[in-house]
């Protein structure tokens, strides 16, 4: 098991190299001079040249990538072009915000998605099934930012019960400020999870061991809770893992709508201002998180499914 984890962590290295390589080259080869963006439309040619030199933009691109990677190996993510602040500091400052948003969204998604999926599956083809699945589908179908704006207008502006933006300080304000963004972010995942749960529950229902359980004379409740759920969980866990990964990186729109100080927004802002070290830093961070989350998912798998556990042991 430890060996397995170790191997998976080692896999991070090529992923990080690949991710930085792709992002570095896309950003560098694209038109638009970081110096010009920083200095704005009122900068003189000399100032631009000065800035370029200062940022080391005059070196050939491979030299710059090489330098970057060398620094990275030493644990140095560089400093931001725009404000000379340490990239690591900036990313680590924002990361918990994105993380908590992703966690709460996932929780909301699970809380809504799993029960909905189960009820739908148990009452397949019923009215209930259809309605909940249609609602779930609508959840997937709305552009996130649109849903976000509508939620704000309704809950903040009209009902005045929840803050419209920002991240609250202190427990209660934090929770309150989390509700709208995590709901608008989690809505889509909730739908995905609900549908996933439904189909994997239906899958399980058809299995022979469920017939065996019935033949034992077990009650439906025990069959559902004890025999079906744990088996149905396995594909759901994959879905949740992937969703969590997407939420981590994909919260850019939500973060913008809700002025949430997360990595997603940092990334957009830094892409727009071509603050390459900052973009790279956030991407590396997200890539690591993504990999770690998937690793955790795989480990959780092993706990749910003894077959997988013994596979890891063997490796």
């Amino acid at each position, binding site marked *: 098991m430890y060996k397995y984890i170790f191997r998976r962590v080692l*896999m991070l290295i*090529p*992923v990080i190299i*690949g*991710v930085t390589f*792709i*992002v570095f080259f*896309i*950003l560098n*080869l*694209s*038109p*638009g001079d970081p110096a010009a963006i920083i200095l704005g439309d009122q900068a003189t040619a000399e100032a631009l040249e000065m800035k370029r030199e200062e940022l080391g933009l005059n070196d050939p691109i491979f030299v710059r990538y090489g330098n970057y990677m060398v620094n990275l190996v030493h644990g140095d993510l560089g400093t931001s072009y725009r404000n000379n602040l340490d990239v690591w500091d900036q990313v680590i400052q924002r990361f918990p915000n994105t993380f908590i948003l992703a966690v709460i969204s996932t929780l909301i998604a699970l809380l809504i998605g799993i029960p909905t999926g189960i009820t739908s599956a148990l009452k397949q083809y019923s009215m209930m099934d*259809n309605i909940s699945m*249609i609602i779930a*589908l*609508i959840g*997937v*179908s*709305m*552009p*996130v*930012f*649109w849903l976000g*704006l*509508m939620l704000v*207008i309704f809950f903040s*502006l009209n009902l005045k019960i929840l803050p419209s933006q920002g991240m609250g300080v202190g427990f209660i304000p934090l929770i309150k400020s989390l509700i709208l963004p995590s709901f608008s972010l989690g809505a889509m995942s909730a739908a995905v999870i609900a*549908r996933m749960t439904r189909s994997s529950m239906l899958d399980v229902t*058809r299995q022979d061991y469920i017939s065996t359980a019935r033949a034992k004379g077990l009650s439906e409740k025990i069959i559902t809770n004890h025999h079906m759920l744990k088996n149905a969980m396995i594909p759901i866990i994959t879905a949740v893992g992937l969703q969590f*990964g*997407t939420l*981590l*990186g*994909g919260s*850019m*729109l939500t973060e*913008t709508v809700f002025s949430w100080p997360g990595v*997603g927004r940092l*990334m*957009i802002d830094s*892409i*727009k201002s071509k603050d390459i070290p900052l*973009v790279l830093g956030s*991407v590396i961070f*997200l*890539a690591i998180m*993504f*990999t770690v989350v998937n690793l955790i998912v795989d480990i959780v798998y092993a706990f749910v499914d003894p077959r997988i556990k013994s596979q890891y042991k063997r490796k």
Partner: protein
Amino acid sequence: MEKVKNANKVSEQRSLWEDTWRRFKKNKMAMIGLYFMIILVIIAFATIVIDIATGQSFYNQHIIKQDLRRRLEGPSPGHIFGLDEFGRDVLMRMLWGTRYSLFMGTIAIVLSCIVGGVLGAVSGFYGKVTDNVIMRLMDILLAIPSMLLAIAIVASLGTSLINVLIAIAVSLIPRFARTVRASVLTVKDQEFIEAARAIGCSDIRIILKYIIPNSLSPLIVQFTLGIASAILSIAGLSFLGLGIQPPTPEWGAMLSNARTYIRDAWHVTAIPGLGIMFTILALNLVGDGLRDALDPRLKN
């Protein structure tokens, strides 16, 4: 348990696709979705025909011509969905925008489906090092948030229709690669592949004639669902100011451009918003319907 059919009656024979269609037809929601999509396709083509027939003059007169004095006017008998922030008829723009939402999504998906499909097939079929290399590549693509990838690509190549397409296509590649690989892996070990080897088929022939046709169904489902997420991605890019150039009446752009007016005139956001929502809903319904119809376990 397979049902033994009475093969004595030739009239009863159905191809696999007919079978699928027959099951699909039974699913009311999926049919509603399908009808909706057909209507959209008809609209898209009709508007294109009108554009060609009138040499863009209809487009210029009714789709992009502004009437700023009447901006944000609410629905009225003359303009049942009201006017947008430039005093243009929202309904007309919705109709003319159909093609973008529909075809851009589709083209992006076709692109990523081809690239991802080939990668996935090769990866699954050859396994070992090839598989490892391709799948790690896909991991890398997956580890970069898809929106970020799209933004980076659009930001670097510029905001044009083509670039938005490329961006979305690239970010969807891993999805297809994984789907195809998974189904290739299940198909690969079936005996009929071995049977093909036994008669001397080459790898290429096996991939083309045996594996791909049999991995098609999950791909088809991914396809419909992929179009849906492509449409949403386009809207998301528009929200970040990286979508399609004005005054093109693309729905995502309409929605995100009008979002500042969400409190002043509900219709300018609600109409494109609902348009997107229903389209995606329809695509999802069709996708789900296909999934069920193609699922061999549900055959009875």
